[in-house]
């Protein structure tokens, strides 16, 4: 099983150092190989479970949190907002 570690790392926003890529590939392969033993199960149906459903919430407003509370764990804020490195629109 070939696993494109670089591509997966890009999707996951993880920086895997070049020298660790073979090890990561080997580890992922060994786990994925367990899966190769699974019986073939296929279904065109989507993954719905009508036997086990959820209740919906009534549309009733509750107070929001104070902004200071919501921002107090933030690494960087400005003007009541979170701040990130400049994003080109």
């Amino acid at each position, binding site marked *: 099983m070939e696993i494109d570690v670089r591509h997966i790392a890009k999707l996951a926003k993880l920086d895997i150092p070049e020298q660790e890529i073979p090890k990561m590939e080997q580890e992922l392969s060994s786990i994925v190989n367990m899966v190769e033993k699974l019986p073939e199960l296929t*279904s065109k149906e989507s993954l719905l479970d009508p036997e086990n459903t*959820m209740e919906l919430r009534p549309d009733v407003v509750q107070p929001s949190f104070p902004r200071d509370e919501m921002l107090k764990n933030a690494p960087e804020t400005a003007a009541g907002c979170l701040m990130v490195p400049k994003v080109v629109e």
Partner: protein
Amino acid sequence: MKKLYEYSATELAAMLRAKEVSASEIAEASLGRIAAVEDQVDAYLTVTAGEARAAAKRVDEKLAAGEEIAPLAGIPIAIKDNICTKGIKTTCASRMLENFVPPYDATVMEKLNAQDIVVTGKVNMDEFAMGGSCENSYFKKTKNPWDTERVPGGSSGGSAAAVAACEVPLALGSDTGGSVRCPASFCGIVGLKPTYGAVSRYGLVAFASSLDQIGPFGRTVDDVSLLYGAICGRDVRDATSRETSLGKVEGSVKGLRLGIPKEYFGEGISAEVKASVYAAAEQLRALGAEIVEISLPSTDYALAAYYIISSAEASSNLARYDGVKYGFSGSREGTLNDLYLSTRSQGFGAEVKRRIMLGTYVLSSGYYDAYYKRAKLLQNVIAKEFADAFAKCDAILTPVNPTTAFRLGEKCDDPVQMYASDVCTVTVNIAGLPGISFPCGSDSAGMPIGMQVIGPKFSETRLLSIAKCYETAVGGFAVKEM
């Protein structure tokens, strides 16, 4: 003479009401014990002595004023560090959340605080609950009180070790693939993994949302029942939660049919573990149960299904740790992408990254059907097998772990070997069932062996009753002197 910290929660609650002891004395006994043994055990990430004393004082004031107190009032408890506590750091044992202070309480914390429980602190775990030994913590390695050279099990290793070391009578953990039952078994205490949906997950930092459940630890079955009864039930903030309550725990197995699935006693399971579990089954037969052989043939596939489903969900659940809103934040010198990469690469440990990579892979374009969807379909097959099995028996007896607690560092290098130790526990999460772990003997090194009892959905009362019956018959579970 029995020390105050050695008493069970049930005993302490009675002593409080009889005015034989004050809540402050109980709290001091617990904090004193933590101070005395913590350097050997390393269970705590945060000790909340101030909050604990204040909570105990409130209980004493209520008692002095002649007010009614709740069943868990004044009882010390340790909380796994992935359960959000308002104003108290909740780190998930990760560098990523080293300084994260939640602005809200998990639903279980609201319920327990409403009872005036005394929280002594937040305890260690595998980072984001990924692991079975507690060695994947960014901060420290918790030790097994029975042998501090050995792991306490995981991921709720801090919770189990704190209870086993008598630092607290109660603890909360969480169980995604065995994370309550495994450390309960390694540390010789009682741990319950409730039915999926029995306890609200609101405020439990997600690892794998469809498998995670919060579960109680104690040194006695009554204590675990007491804590479970206080936290279960539907929560409008958790769409997957269900209404349920604890019935009367009779402590009898008379007339119960208990199934032994041969697939759980295969070659990977150590001879000592098998022998102990069979002996315990024999004892339950003597106490009035009927033992029946059953078969759960898909068990072999459960581990693969578990690692696909849990890693897929984890890869999505842990994407929010991006250095923007909270937690560790990497380099802000470069671009947004640099911030993401540096935050996540430095903030997560190796095991967490491995699972994120695996989960990302199985969900990625072209692999969803082959891996994720196939695993979900297999999940239905496994759940159906259990449902069929419960037509033949009332509960199922199995080992918890293939072996007793292993040495620190022994299995760190090989993820697949580490994952294989979850083989007896993951099926329960995959099928959404309740499972209890309680001690059923020890190996030649004196390390505890655990037995697992699995029941149909929402059969917690029955499982606790079976465990209590055994506990009573053996004259209670041993506590390790430290």
